[in-house]
């Protein structure tokens, strides 16, 4: 039974969703943007193949409040039948004036959405990135540019749409604040995007070529820099980044974090799932 939902437990979640028509989140006590966006994309995927899923919502009021603050319910009913054991409705949750939410779950469907995302994050950057991550003006600029580039991948490469969500957490284990960014789509994935340009062995190689070598589906000069620049920014600020696409996941792991850097043979899932975690400095 899943008790937390993040990039670390996403495989278990996908396995559950692939074999059960009801996805049981009742015991979830922790969920991050990757978990939330992952649920939505999973629901969207199963709906697209006419295999609708039912979502059993967490019983924890704390988690439900957080889901509400992140606008999860605004999107989830499009993709799932929702069952809740809580008597509370989303309208009952008081939205605090101060929140750790840097960006609620936001659809990415067109270029204008990225203008909206950038404006929204700029407005909130001081409260969260300066105050909790101690980022200066240059780092905030790098953060927003990286966010713009990573979201643009959906429009430029996926041939589909997606979601993004960003939240600040306090990491108890390290007594540090972190900001987590999750960006996902249901598109053609990295191997699909690069297949016209290079002959690829598999998903892992496609992610490596895009992230580490700056290879793009477009042959013109100046392309393929976006993700490479995001990787550089994450590295410079001692962050962690992982990209999952198809059946593989590639992670860039700083010394303070953990995990496997290369994971092939995962559960197949369309599109790309990107997770970025940035610690305070």
């Amino acid at each position, binding site marked *: 039974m899943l008790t937390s939902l993040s990039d670390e437990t996403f495989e278990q979640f996908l396995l559950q969703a692939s074999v059960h028509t009801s996805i049981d989140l009742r015991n979830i006590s922790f969920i991050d943007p990757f978990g939330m966006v992952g649920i939505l994309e999973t629901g969207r995927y199963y709906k697209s193949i006419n295999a609708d899923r039912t979502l059993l919502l967490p019983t924890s009021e704390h988690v439900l409040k957080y889901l509400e603050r992140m606008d999860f319910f605004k999107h989830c009913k499009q993709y799932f039948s929702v069952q809740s054991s809580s008597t509370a409705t989303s309208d009952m949750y008081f939205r605090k004036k101060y929140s750790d939410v840097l960006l609620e779950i936001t659809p990415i469907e067109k*270029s*204008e959405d*990225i*203008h*909206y995302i*950038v*404006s929204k994050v*700029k407005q909130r950057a001081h409260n969260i990135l300066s105050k909790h991550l101690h980022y200066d*003006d*240059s780092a905030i*600029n790098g953060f*927003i*540019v990286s966010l*713009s*580039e990573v979201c*643009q991948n959906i*429009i*430029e490469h996926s041939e589909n749409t997606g979601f993004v969500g960003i939240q600040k957490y306090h990491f108890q284990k390290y007594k540090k604040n972190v900001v987590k960014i999750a960006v996902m789509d249901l598109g053609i994935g990295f191997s699909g995007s690069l297949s016209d340009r290079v002959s690829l062995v598999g998903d892992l190689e496609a992610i490596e070529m895009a992230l580490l070598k700056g290879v793009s589906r477009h042959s013109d*000069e*100046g*392309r393929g*820099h*976006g993700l490479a*620049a995001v990787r550089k920014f994450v590295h410079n600020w001692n962050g962690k980044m992982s990209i999952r696409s198809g059946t593989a996941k590639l992670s860039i792991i700083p010394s303070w974090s953990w995990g496997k850097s290369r994971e092939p043979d995962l559960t197949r899932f369309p599109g790309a799932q990107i997770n970025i975690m940035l610690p305070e400095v």
Partner: protein
Amino acid sequence: MTISYNLYSILKSRIGNGSTDLVTRQSGGVIRGIIESDLIKEQEGSIVALDFSGIGIVDYSCADEIVAKLVSRLLSGEYGDKYIMLTGLNENQRENIEVALERKDLAVMAEMRDNNKTLLGNLNNYLRETLQLIINNGKITAKDLSEAMGLESNTSGTRLLNLHKKRLVIRRDETRSGGKVWAYEPL
């Protein structure tokens, strides 16, 4: 003649979502299209200054789509005998635009918000030195450059011509001591 193109006004009129940010390749393409349609109509010899002062964030994709593509097409002669420079830049914008230019081995003159003139992008050291001398002197001929840097006249002439081909300096003909010479000036 220097003509200023206010990028914020263009962004406001064409993207129309209240954004002050030059982000996304798609938006960059729209903005570049507007700039190009005006640029082509300007008089030969005009200097077009792209004014970034009302702009917030500039991402790499948009910088590539607007600045790097404009400079690249300028150098290939698509817009005729014109010059492009950037004005009103802050440090963050400068950094992101510079990355886009470096990836295409291009360079452009820029005036920062503190009015400091600087070169963005890639240029080899001896051309940088020459450019700096032109900026410091205000105007220079091949003879002046030879004297200042102890160069053969052919070398000086080639350096100045290369800077002009990169559209980083203006070239005008002047009469000196009864003969015609090329004089090079900063943008």
